[in-house]
């Protein structure tokens, strides 16, 4: 290594890193979208009050939250083909992220829903609304407001966790960087670059979340 930080090298590698970044963003976006669907469905099951629906949802959350994402990933990518379910690295990654994030989103949805005060339910009952009217038209919008911060937190965690997909050979940003390091040993430049990229994305997501939160809090702020 000639000098400590080689800007010219970084400039040459940038296109490859950006392609990796693109993959990181695609896989995370798909994962986040799917996980929100899983979380919403799961929360509905969890809140339904029927044992046959509540227990699978509880077991799902407990299992996902108490096992490492990396092992879940290996189980999906290397374990499932042994029983005939084969997914590409890309879809294994999407499925793994979605299933992982879904468990956390489920809890956020649920906490938000349970956070709606009992008075609101009584009021909607007094106004003659049916229970599903209450759930969809009254409780859901209020619940989403409380659930947004922790849902954003989960989504940020999912974006960061997409770096684990390096381990199954998906060409996302971390994979590109480590692949280059194996060839060219430019550790400092490459890690500095991907750290900056991750920081920028995460800070942008946090800033976006803050805007969204203040937007959702509009009805409650004094003018």
């Amino acid at each position, binding site marked *: *290594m000639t000098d400590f930080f080689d800007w010219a090298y970084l400039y040459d590698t940038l296109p490859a890193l950006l392609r990796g970044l693109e993959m990181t963003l695609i896989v995370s976006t798909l994962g986040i979208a799917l996980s929100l669907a899983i979380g919403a469905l799961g929360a509905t099951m969890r809140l339904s009050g029927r044992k046959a629906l509540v227990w699978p949802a509880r077991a799902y959350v*407990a*299992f996902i*939250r*108490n*096992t*490492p*994402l*990396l*092992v*879940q990933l*290996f*189980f999906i990518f*290397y*374990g*499932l*083909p*042994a*029983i005939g379910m084969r997914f590409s690295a890309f879809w294994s990654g999407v499925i793994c992220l979605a299933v992982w994030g879904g468990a*956390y989103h489920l*809890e*956020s949805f649920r*906490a*938000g829903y*349970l*956070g709606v*005060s009992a008075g609101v339910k009584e009021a909607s009952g007094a106004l003659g609304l049916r229970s599903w009217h209450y759930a969809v038209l009254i409780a859901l919008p209020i619940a989403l407001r*409380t659930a947004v*911060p*922790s849902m954003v*937190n*989960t989504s*940020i*965690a*999912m*974006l*960061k*966790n*997409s*770096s*684990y997909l*390096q*381990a199954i050979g998906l060409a996302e940003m*971390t994979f590109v960087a*480590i692949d280059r*390091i194996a060839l060219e040993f430019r*550790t*400092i430049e490459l*890690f500095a670059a*991907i*750290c900056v990229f*991750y*920081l920028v994305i*995460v*800070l942008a997501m946090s800033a976006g979340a803050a805007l969204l939160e203040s937007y959702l809090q509009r009805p409650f702020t004094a003018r």
Partner: protein
Amino acid sequence: MHVIFVNQEILAQGLVMTLALTFCVLIAATAVATILAAGMLSRSALLRVPARILVEIMRDIPLFVTVMMIYFVAPTIGIALDPFEATVAGLGAWGGANGAIIIRAGIQAVSSGQREACAALGLHRFQALRLVILPQALRPILPPYLGLVTQLVQATSIGALIGVRELLRSAQIVIERATIMEGGLSPFTLYAAVLVVYFVICFALSLASARMEAVLSRHEQPSSSAKPRLSRLRLMPRG
């Protein structure tokens, strides 16, 4: 199942390594968390600002990248770390940043009236911290901290990727051998078994955390039941 019993020795060694790794990481993370929390709560901006920036950066960079970075960059600046040490350093830094957030939140949760009362009684700042604030802060700190331990146990699996022979790596070694000799179901069985082992350890810790929260908050006013749950979600370590 046969493949597990035949290789139980190597898998057991892996589990022991996972537990050893967790133990070292826990000590490192707690030390880092204490220092960072002290920095974040300091009255001097010269300590507060760097501590906050450090915590934010540690929480925003993926843990996997942090561990890889330490493992690959340390040798180029003249510090040779073996995989075990690199994993402990990476997880310690990450756990420390997340632990610092929990500790800070716990100390800030003690009402300011307590601090004022201490001042009125003429207690020194550190006496107040040790005798009045910390004992009360432990109540909001301990349950989420135990939750962080759960995350750290899971995160030790990253060690497998840089060559620590912990539980996941041991399973991979067994799979490599078994697939060459017999093929078939061994990846499915072994990864499922590894998932179950992690689940047993972490679920027990999670139950302990929930139980501890219930016991520690039994004297509090039963306000709305959903709120503490949400606050715990917000304290969730990020990835």
